[in-house]
């Protein structure tokens, strides 16, 4: 697996427990519309991602992240900086 594929696999694994509606999740899945997450779920999920990858995802960055693919891209950028 490439590094992106590994990050992607980890993100999908972390999404699963929050995916209460059992939505099929892909790169284009949107957190608000497709997964139907409310702000509290987003907070918990972001905290989980932050702890797993040991990064900070500020609200400024979250505002730019609508889909799973965009989250993986953002994480790739953050990990590259480390």
């Amino acid at each position, binding site marked *: 697996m490439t590094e992106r594929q590994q990050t992607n696999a980890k993100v999908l694994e972390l999404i699963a427990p929050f995916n209460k509606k059992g939505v099929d999740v892909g790169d284009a899945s949107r957190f608000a519309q497709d997964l139907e997450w*409310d702000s*509290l779920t987003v*907070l*918990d999920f972001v*905290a989980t991602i*932050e*702890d797993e990858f*040991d*990064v*900070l995802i*500020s*609200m*400024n*960055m979250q505002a730019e992240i609508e889909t799973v693919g965009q989250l993986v891209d953002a994480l790739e950028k953050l990990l590259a900086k480390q």
Partner: protein
Amino acid sequence: MSDLFSKFDPLIQEREALLETGLTDPFNLTMERVESPTVAICNGKRTILLGTYNYMGMTFDPDVIAAGKKALDDFGSGTTGSRVLNGTYLGHRECEAALRDFYQMDHAMVFSTGYQANLGIISTLAGKDDYIVLDIDSHASIYDGCALGPAQIVPFRHNDIEAMEKRLKRIPEGAGKLVVLEGVYSMLGDVAPLKEMVAVAKANGAMVLVDEAHSMGFIGENGRGVAEAQGVIEDVDFIIGTFSKSVGTVGGFCVSNHPKFEILRLVCRPYVFTASLPPSVVATAATSIRKLKDAGDKRAHLWENSKRLHAGLAQLGFTLGTREPQSAIIAVIMPDLPTGAAMWEALLKQGLYVNLARPPATPAGMTLLRCSLCSEHSADQVGEILGMFAAAGRATGCIS
């Protein structure tokens, strides 16, 4: 027709559905006459006020009113100017002196509202590449201060010391850090673990701002707030407060010991680009603040009221926001908005006003009946309030 208002359609529909059931609009009440800090006439009916944040009952204090009237006579109805131009009168200086004495701090800056105090200080302090770490349940004025500035915004789970620490440790080296906390969180009336949080923030090189809007005048030996009560006020860099709660008028402020604090008067846009408070308002505020300093008896009575209401409501079977009373706010958790609105109306018809709070103001999508007590509520009034809650709760099926 679709236009810029279309995004409000879901809210408009929800409101219409609620009002169609014949309920009184909970967000459109008029106080026709106000008799005292605890009683007003609403819809022609004498109503006990239990949702005003008028914690210390200063709105009808004779000294406060006399000071306001004298300032109106001596200085006129308004300043028509910014604090940095023609809007600083003697009264503004005296009000800032009263705040410095009250908090025992070197600097005080008075804003036209509490909202603007948070908006101005937070947006001005944290610049580009700086980080603001804040509690997720922070007040709208704190979030708006964050949004107005260019800093990176990092929220953490409510009152979670470990979550806050983790985020502070992940901030890139060299970046400026501001931790924003509240003493009392107004929705559930719970208090922050400031002792631990301030220590963690300081250990990680952050400056600390604490909003003490709901604790000023009441919590702490001298009424300075939760930071005083928990013994960490010396380590807090900025305290934000308001005149629209315990002080009993309108306005906001920031106090600090930072040696460069005064420069904020020139660079803080919500301070510079708005008119200053009217002379009568700063005169009432200064008089009230000086009286609050020595209001130990009132503080004691307010605690009694808070404890009695909390115990009484819990005994009736209501679900409350905190297990024990932590402030002068007692939040009654409602199962949903329709029940909350029905309960609110049942209380109003009996002659009791409380705040109906709903998302997005509330955490976790809760509907709350929020009660805020006043030091001027008599023991009889608290008894009356509990009786009305019992009747309304049974009528709406909230309690059995």
